[in-house]
């Protein structure tokens, strides 16, 4: 479980997180909704370690993440995706996944130079896992393609697949459905459900309310860096004050 307590952050006069308390539970899908600029992506950036928080604490299964860098949090089992995908354009689809393994074997030049055989055997296992994940998301035949050659919806799926390589305990999905439709939409829903069912705490930032409604166990509404409400998506939508804040009418 990921627990956020009294988390605060501002950039100059702009408050992106104002004393936030939030829990993301194992096996549950939490939706994070709110208008643009509410602080949803900023919250992901704070949790994943992209920005340091001014105050507050974050724990993952009781282990403090405070003061840890982006890569250190990922190594503890915190995975995320990005609103604009951010795949590696110089790598093929399969290589984008392989690089996402939590314990990537070839990160040490010393190990490469003096113990290359260790890397080779571990890399084969990781590649097999990457192939398996590609099959799960429905694009097994695109493994050797350049990621830039994939339709945008499939790129989004590859972004999620890359995060899945982490075997994370907590998965943060930043607008996974933006620009996704058709088969990719269905595949994304299925994958997110499967991941949560395996015991991972999933949090989804999404403007596609239908997606949140169909998928999430509950949702929180953010506005100006604060959490205003938590409940089922039906409850949140039924609240006229929140609807006005979200849609502006």
């Amino acid at each position: 479980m990921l627990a956020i307590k009294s988390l605060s952050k501002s950039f100059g006069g702009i408050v992106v997180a104002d004393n936030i308390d939030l829990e993301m539970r194992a096996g549950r899908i939490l939706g994070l909704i709110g208008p643009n600029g509410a602080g949803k992506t900023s919250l992901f950036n704070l949790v994943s370690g992209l920005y340091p928080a001014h105050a507050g604490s974050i724990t993952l299964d009781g282990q403090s993440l405070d003061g840890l860098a982006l890569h250190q949090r990922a190594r503890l089992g915190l995975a995320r995706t990005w609103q604009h995908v951010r795949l590696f354009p110089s790598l093929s689809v399969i290589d984008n996944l392989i690089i996402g393994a939590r314990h990537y074997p070839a990160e040490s030049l010393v190990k490469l130079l003096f113990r290359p055989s260790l890397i080779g055997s571990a890399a084969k296992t990781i590649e097999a896992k990457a192939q398996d994940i590609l099959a799960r998301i429905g694009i097994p035949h695109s493994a050797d393609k350049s990621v830039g050659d994939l339709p945008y919806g499939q790129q989004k799926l590859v972004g999620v697949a890359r995060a899945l390589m982490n075997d994370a305990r907590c998965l943060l999905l930043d607008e996974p459905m933006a620009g996704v439709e058709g088969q990719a939409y269905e595949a994304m829903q299925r994958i997110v459900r499967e991941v949560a069912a395996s015991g991972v705490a999933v949090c989804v930032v999404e403007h596609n309310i239908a997606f949140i409604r169909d998928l999430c166990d509950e949702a929180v509404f953010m506005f100006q860096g604060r959490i205003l409400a938590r409940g089922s998506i039906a409850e949140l939508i039924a609240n006229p004050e929140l609807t006005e804040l979200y849609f502006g009418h």
Partner: protein
Amino acid sequence: MDYVYSITILISLFVILASSFNLIIGYGGLISIAHPIFYGLGAYASALLARDLGVPVPLSILSGAVFAMLLSVAMALPALRISGDYLLIASIGFQLGMIELIKNLRFTGGASGVSGIPAFLVPTFGREVYVALVIAVALGVVLLVRWIAHSDYGRAISAMRDDEQAFAALGRDAKWIKVSIFALGSAIAGLAGALYAHYFRFVTSEQFEILMSSTILTMVVVGGLKTPWGPVIGAILLQILPQAITFLNLPPVVLGPLQGLLFTGLVLIFMFLRPGGLVRAGSTWRAAGSGHGGA
């Protein structure tokens, strides 16, 4: 024949320098202009260890490479803790500062340099053997860089170069990868310097000035960034062309500027007409043996 040997050794040394610089700037995406000083530090360290302390030359050559590597880590680590951009600033300061230090220290011979450096292999086996050694080292360095670039580690380097934040968010430590690449590239430059010192047997700080980094960069850019063989072609071309011009028997007042113009002109021509260099890198990284060009 000595002239041919000297030119062959210089070409091979520049192949080593261009290939190791390609590892740093091409594959690693790290901007540094301090490559000449690591070349110089290797040369000075090996020369002084062998001449003044009586260290056996093979060991002093290796020590030269290790010395360059250690100083490169000391320089890069604080800069890369903050951002890759700071490496350029740090490298300028380091290059200029170390040259001044070498010029002003007594044990480095000051501005007069170090002479009487012990020769290696040549007195016993002849110049041909030393030439063969340097060519073998150059080939070894090119193959090493190629192997790294197309290994699983090379995949990580490519991803890091593409998007450092997304790379770190996957649990990869970009800082150590950058420091490692920089240290290895600098160690190889130091090795080249040591090999230079024990053949020509005289080193002076003027041989490792900041201008040399533009020469090495031109070799990499003209040959082809992010390709194993591009810097080889660039180094051969840009070592032979200035030498060829000398056979035109032009007056020195024309020859000097002409050689300068040659480098500048080639960079401009390649920037506009063939920015990828003579050997173009593939757009997608491929593992060794996959039959595709590397990224």
